[in-house]
């Protein structure tokens, strides 16, 4: 059993991203095996207790106190804890404008503020959102762990005032060409989007950009908005606004399938919309009413094609590979593999990509496991170990407690790639790479060594491992789309501009290897 030593600092607040970076640096220190740096909320204290930290050592910590827990060489740990201040020095912010100490001070300096961007810990998020609504501001609410009751109350309050709450757990918005949260640098245009998922919104807007058209606005709603408990309050507000917005000519909605009652409400609203509408309910190939006056698509790629057509595009650029070329390539890949190689292992940073890939493979009859299974897919019992064909959402809560999300930090995915490459049954590794503001500065480079090393491991054992990757981004993103794709091609990956295309190619290889997907 591990022996943990802890220290806590009274009334020292740091945000979770900074603390995860501190923990990461500490765990890289020689003599330290594991490091955790968290605020002393009840949830965080429970996590520490589960890890084996002594209850007495954290019992007195309050949500406003910083807790550092370390295990490893006892002398090294004690020395580090004694000098912990050195580890807590924040890098200088790049902000040109001076910071404010409160929302009201910020508003006194910038009275025209129309949006509060809120990413405080979940237990404080509802109060801050309410304060912003009371001051007449729209809200982008990145924080999660907000109760559904609070979500409904806040959204009703917003609706009464003609405002919107995007979230909770809203990752992305794109308003007037400006990305908020995890968003890409996308050309302005006439297609407006409402999306329940951050990566869904990113993929849709990037594919529109790559086609040569652009986005008027992309409004996030949070993943629960279209559930029956929330009833689509933010989606309806967003549709109303995009319908009135003169820049928007076509409206698209991207979401997992809504709750049944909410689907009826949304369908009715969409059928009365004065502008053409495309609804992408992931994994659903036909709408609730085939006579509906709006189009229903099952994938983001199909929704983008429909939106482009409705916006008057004469068709996108030629595909680099046509279907038959890709089929030949898939057959060639499958032919290079050793007997026994038959499974796909998908390791995703984006939840929507995991979901959509499941849909593509499931519909081809591949018997899948996932930690975030859609209908017809088995639950992966142990998320730390794949079983058969497995698609794993590595941004799910079980992977991100106390560690950064895989869109920011590739450490966990890198380790998992190494593990999968050693499994002689694995034929295909399916990966996603997400560019844009606030993502890793070099997502492809972060995993380049792990991919090369995985290929070498397989080769040394007489196998051929296919690595299939999708990159979500644009040429104007800080990381550069083509540059990132090139890095992946250089390490032998087959690279695609969309998750559906990558998933379809991976599916074709697997079907060759399994003759039916079992």
């Amino acid at each position, binding site marked *: 059993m591990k022996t943990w030593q802890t220290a806590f600092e009274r*009334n020292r*607040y740091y*945000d979770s*991203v900074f603390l995860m970076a501190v923990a990461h640096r500490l765990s890289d220190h020689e003599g330290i095996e594991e490091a955790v740096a968290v*605020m002393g909320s009840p949830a965080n204290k429970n996590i520490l207790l589960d890890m084996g930290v002594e209850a007495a050592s954290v019992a007195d910590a*309050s*949500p*406003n106190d910083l807790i550092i827990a370390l295990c490893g060489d006892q002398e090294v740990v004690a020395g580090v804890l004694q000098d912990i201040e050195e580890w807590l020095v924040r890098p200088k*912010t*790049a*902000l040109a*404008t001076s*910071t*404010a*100490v*409160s*929302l009201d*001070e*910020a*508003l006194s*300096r*910038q009275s*025209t*503020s*129309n*949006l*509060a*961007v*809120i*990413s*405080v*810990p979940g237990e*404080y998020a509802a109060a*801050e959102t309410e304060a*912003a609504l009371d001051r*007449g501001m*729209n809200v982008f609410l*990145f924080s999660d762990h907000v109760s559904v009751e609070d979500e409904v109350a806040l959204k009703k309050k917003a609706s009464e*005032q*003609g*405002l*919107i709450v995007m979230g909770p757990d809203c990752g992305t918005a794109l*308003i*007037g060409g*400006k*990305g*908020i*949260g995890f968003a890409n*640098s996308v050309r302005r245009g006439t297609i407006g989007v409402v999306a329940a998922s951050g990566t869904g919104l990113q993929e849709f807007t990037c594919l529109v950009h790559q086609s040569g058209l652009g986005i*008027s*606005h992309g409004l996030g709603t949070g993943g629960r908005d279209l559930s029956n408990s929330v009833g689509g309050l933010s989606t309806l*507000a*967003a549709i*109303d*606004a995009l319908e*009135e*917005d003169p*820049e928007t000519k076509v409206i698209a909605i991207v979401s997992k399938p809504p709750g049944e009652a909410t689907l009826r409400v949304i369908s009715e609203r969409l059928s009365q919309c004065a502008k053409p509408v495309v609804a992408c309910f992931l994994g659903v190939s036909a709408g609730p009413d085939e006579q509906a006056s709006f189009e229903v698509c099952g994938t983001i790629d199909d929704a983008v094609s429909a939106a482009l057509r409705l916006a008057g595009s004469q068709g996108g650029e030629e595909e680099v590979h046509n279907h038959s070329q890709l089929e030949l390539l898939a057959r060639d890949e499958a032919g290079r593999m050793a007997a026994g190689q038959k499974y796909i292992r998908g390791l995703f940073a984006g939840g929507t990509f995991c979901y959509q890939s499941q849909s593509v493979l499931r519909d081809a009859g591949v018997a899948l496991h996932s930690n975030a299974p859609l209908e017809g897919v088995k639950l992966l019992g142990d998320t730390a170990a794949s079983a058969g064909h497995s698609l794993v959402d590595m941004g799910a809560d079980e992977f991100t407690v106390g560690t950064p999300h895989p869109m920011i930090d590739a450490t966990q995915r890198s380790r998992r790639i190494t593990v999968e490459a050693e499994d002689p049954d694995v034929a295909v590794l399916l990966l996603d790479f997400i560019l844009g*503001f*606030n993502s890793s500065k070099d997502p492809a480079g972060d995993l380049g060594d792990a991919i090369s090393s995985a290929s070498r491991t397989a080769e040394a054992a007489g196998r051929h491992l296919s690595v299939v990757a999708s990159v979500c981004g644009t040429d104007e993103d800080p990381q550069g789309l083509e540059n990132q794709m090139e890095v992946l091609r250089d390490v032998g990956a087959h690279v695609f501009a969309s998750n559906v295309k990558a998933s379809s190619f991976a599916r074709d290889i697997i079907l060759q290897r399994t003759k039916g997907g079992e």
Partner: protein
Amino acid sequence: MPRLLDLLREGPISVNLGLVEFAEALEAQAAPVIHVDWTPPPLLDEETKSILDELL
């Protein structure tokens, strides 16, 4: 007119509470933003709370 439409028309003029990286990204896109150096409200004991409630 809904104030959400003002946001679409004017573009985001933001106040950022929480992760400073979000404010930095907005500033990098030339979008006006003021970052609030947010900290949790102080924890008060019941007696102090009731005194404050009376005063406010």
